[in-house]
């Protein structure tokens, strides 16, 4: 029973890690860059949620929608104002752009430190009470987190697999010149993808605020998870990131239950290293190969 309870807890946190990982890996897949300011997008959404929920007293669903829209705007504006000029100045812009995001990370952390101070802030919980199924106990808040994450993952999957915009994103991630020659405006895809990535991480930013609290460097937590999930799933691989998120969530929860909560991160990362020894490109590409073998033996 304890084991099952831990698996369920792991699924809940894993769903959030999947969302965090998908937003991060999306940008790598499309632009071949790492966005070091990704955690700060999370942090901004968390502060926004804190202000909107506890100071302004807005309902949670409205806070979520507002933060998704706000972070979409911030992400898109970041691409337009900071990244585009760097891209236009050099042919080989990956490393310069990564440095820009690193700079943005530090600037945002310090700006928030100046405005909000360094203390931990937060709310105790969005929802109280638990659902008791007899064999497992799950709090309503965790159920809500699970539901919102799964809904968001489904919406992202739909956007990428079923819409023209999603197909254009896939095209850009696989062959930039082929995409240009098909009439796809790369600039537009970059800007919208950056907005989408920030909008995705806005949701964990809002939903995890009661658990992680909010402070200027809170972004370090999600970006570490994003790195782990992305490496685990294969860089730029969205399916891989979804699976990687659940793997990380469950292994973390089991480690803290059966070994020590202090060892939680250590065990999870050791597990990640172990997987990478056997599948150096992550599990995503391996799963795709498997699927391809089934289609064309």
């Amino acid at each position, binding site marked *: 029973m304890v084991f099952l309870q831990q698996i369920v807890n792991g699924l809940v946190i894993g769903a959030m890690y999947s969302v965090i990982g998908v937003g991060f890996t999306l940008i790598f897949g499309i632009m071949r860059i790492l966005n070091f300011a990704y955690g700060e997008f999370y942090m901004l959404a968390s502060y926004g949620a804190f202000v909107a929920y506890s100071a302004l007293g807005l309902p949670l669903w409205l806070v979520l929608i507002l933060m998704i829209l706000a972070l979409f705007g911030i992400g898109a504006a970041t691409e337009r104002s900071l990244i585009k000029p760097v891209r236009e100045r050099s042919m080989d812009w990956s490393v310069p752009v990564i440095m820009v995001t690193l700079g943005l990370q530090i600037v945002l952390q310090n700006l928030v430190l100046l405005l909000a101070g360094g203390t931990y802030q937060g709310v105790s919980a969005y929802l109280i009470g638990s659902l008791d199924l007899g064999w497992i106990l799950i709090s309503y808040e965790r159920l809500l987190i699970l539901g919102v994450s799964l809904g968001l993952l489904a919406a992202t999957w739909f956007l990428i697999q079923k819409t023209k915009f999603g197909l254009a994103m896939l095209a850009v991630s696989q062959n930039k010149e*082929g*995409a240009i020659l098909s*009439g796809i405006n790369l600039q537009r895809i970059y800007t919208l993808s950056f907005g989408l990535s920030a909008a995705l991480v806005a949701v964990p930013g809002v939903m995890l605020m009661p658990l992680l609290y909010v402070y200027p460097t809170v972004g370090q937590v999600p970006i570490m998870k994003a790195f782990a999930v992305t490496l685990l799933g294969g860089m730029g691989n969205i399916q891989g990131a979804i699976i990687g998120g659940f793997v990380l969530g469950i292994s973390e929860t089991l480690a803290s239950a059966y070994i020590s909560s202090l060892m939680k991160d250590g065990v999870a990362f050791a597990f990640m290293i172990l997987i990478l020894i056997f599948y150096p490109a992550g599990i995503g590409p391996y799963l795709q190969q498997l699927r391809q073998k089934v289609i064309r033996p």
Partner: protein
Amino acid sequence: MIPPVFRVSGLNAYYGDLQVLWGIDLEVYPSEILAIIGANGAGKTTLLRSIFGLHLQRSGSIQFHGEELAESPPHSLIHRGLAHVPDERGIFPDLTVERNLLIGAFSLKGSGTTETALNWIYQMFPILNERRNFLARSLSGGEQQMLALGKGMITKPKLLFLDEPSSGLSPLMVFRLMDFIQRIYQEGTTVVLVEQNVHQALRTARRACVLENGRIVLHGSSSELMRDERVKKAYLGK
């Protein structure tokens, strides 16, 4: 005399300080197949990349129906009726054949047009219809080339640039490919064919130019060039 539909004048291209194309002048007339031939490293691929704005360090004028293209963003060229099938084929390896073609058809407007265009390509290349749900990377070299051609043609461009379509293909496949190019041409598309396979290129095209060290050194009708001593010696192995 019919005016050319497409005209490149004084095109220069550079890799940093190194100039690789020197004052290229090129005219393409309506409804023709023009071959651009030359050895490896002569600048053929750079020429096409420069025309399509994929190679940014360039100067000169590029006109299509009298309209200057040098300042237009590269992705807008297909909307004007210019398509380019690059030498690494420009396909998307981890997407299915059908989705590759759908991306190729992005610039088509109007409901049902995409569907019609897709069926037309499937009719022309039945192998693509058979493989429609296969990932592009799982196709053979010849099938990938058919996909690249199909993707380039799906918008029925007025002017189609093909960069080394015969590379990596068996002699039989090259023969079939040249047959397809003839058919594309008969569908009303003007074709610029860049080839290292000089023999096949001169048999397919009506007119050709020879590129050497980034300059056009010879041009004329294919039959003239086939008799030209220099061409014979350098490219036809006679």
